[in-house]
């Protein structure tokens, strides 16, 4: 079964919720945590783990055989990302950073002058780690610096995570509601939307709940940093969207301390009220999984 942690806004605590749930649920479930926030993967940092088992993520990169090229410009016309620039003399030039590897130019060329090359845009990792008494498998996707096409890396890391047999695949997504987030959560039994009591938290919560509705995924809402602002509008919005607020993590210095130590708070300070709230949430998720 797949359960996703998302939330729309950046910095709301998606990864904090994901690693604490992973630490608790792995005590009696075989658990894979998939960090699909490929522009900024940090679950391994929050878990004090090293990335291991690196594999490249390659996409197609077109090269032009200028001896075959008839300067028809077909490749430039079909290119959706502006990666194929037709010069005044009619010859195409490839701008690699803009290319998404979609192969349209390859299929459009009437004289087979486009040669298939490849380019590494990111990596996936697989780390086996021990958390207190339990073990988890962490799969991480990481986009190379300077690259902008995230979906191939998200999908490669997702595939790698799903290839590991488990009772629960827990997916941690990036911020936003882009196609990368939709691709990450697709097929989930449940989406846990982490938000915070701020106007921006509210705005982005609306977007992620709409996305969950569109994809037909049941959504639960976790309010992180509870206590820093009013939640009335959040309560109203969640009701309108047919979702439910299931947990409120208090705003606390202890959460920050565990973050800095790279130990989930449920292990670092199991006696804290924050850890208690995570245990309650984990029990609810366990109820869905079993």
């Amino acid at each position: 079964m797949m359960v996703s942690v998302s939330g729309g806004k950046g910095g709301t605590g998606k990864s904090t919720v994901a690693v604490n749930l992973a630490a608790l649920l792995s005590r009696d479930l075989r658990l894979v945590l998939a960090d699909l926030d490929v522009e900024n993967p940090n679950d391994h940092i929050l878990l004090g783990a090293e990335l291991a088992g690196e594999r490249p993520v390659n996409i197609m990169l077109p090269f032009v055989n200028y001896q075959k090229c008839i300067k028809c410009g077909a490749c430039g016309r079909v290119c959706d990302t502006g990666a194929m620039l037709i010069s005044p003399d009619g010859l195409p030039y490839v701008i690699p950073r803009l290319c998404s590897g979609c192969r349209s130019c390859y299929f459009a060329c009437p004289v087979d002058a486009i040669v298939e090359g490849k380019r590494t845009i990111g990596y996936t990792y697989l780390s086996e780690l021990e958390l207190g008494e339990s073990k988890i498998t962490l799969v991480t996707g990481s986009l190379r610096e300077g690259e902008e096409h995230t979906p191939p890396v998200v999908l490669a890391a997702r595939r790698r995570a799903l290839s590991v047999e488990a009772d629960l695949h827990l997916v941690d997504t990036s911020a936003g509601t882009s196609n990368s987030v939709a691709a990450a959560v697709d097929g989930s039994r449940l989406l846990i939307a982490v938000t915070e009591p701020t106007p921006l938290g509210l705005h982005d919560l609306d977007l992620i709940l709409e996305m969950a509705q569109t994809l037909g995924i049941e959504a639960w809402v976790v309010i992180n940093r509870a206590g820093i602002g009013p939640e009335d509008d959040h309560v109203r919005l969640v009701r309108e969207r047919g979702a439910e607020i299931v947990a409120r993590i208090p705003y606390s210095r202890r959460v920050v301390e565990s973050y800095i130590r790279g130990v989930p708070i449920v292990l670092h300070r199991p006696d804290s009220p924050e850890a208690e709230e995570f245990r309650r949430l984990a029990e609810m998720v366990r109820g869905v999984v079993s």
Partner: protein
Amino acid sequence: MGTVKVGLAVEDDSGLDSRVSSRFGRAPYLAIVELEDGEIGGVRVVENPGASARSGAGIKAVQRLLEEGVRVAVAGAFGPNAMTALEELGIETVELAGVSVEEALQRIRTKLQGQ
């Protein structure tokens, strides 16, 4: 000095009165001006395909200017992709914004006389 074509990224479709845009790739329109021996021969305003592009806006704007045979590009600022392409293609860039097309051409006249 003959005929030189200048492409200006502009905010509106008002001929020589169009305002030069602060951005190149995402400007709504491109004004194509023909200069004959330094005198304005004609102006056409066309839609900038970069304005509605999901990505690679700068390159799409460059491509449109290339189709027009432009030798000089004018905008408030050029993005890194557009700048690289324009430099590679030997198209001169002028950074200037907030004035009309006509004013912009007057300001860069000396530069254009070197063409």
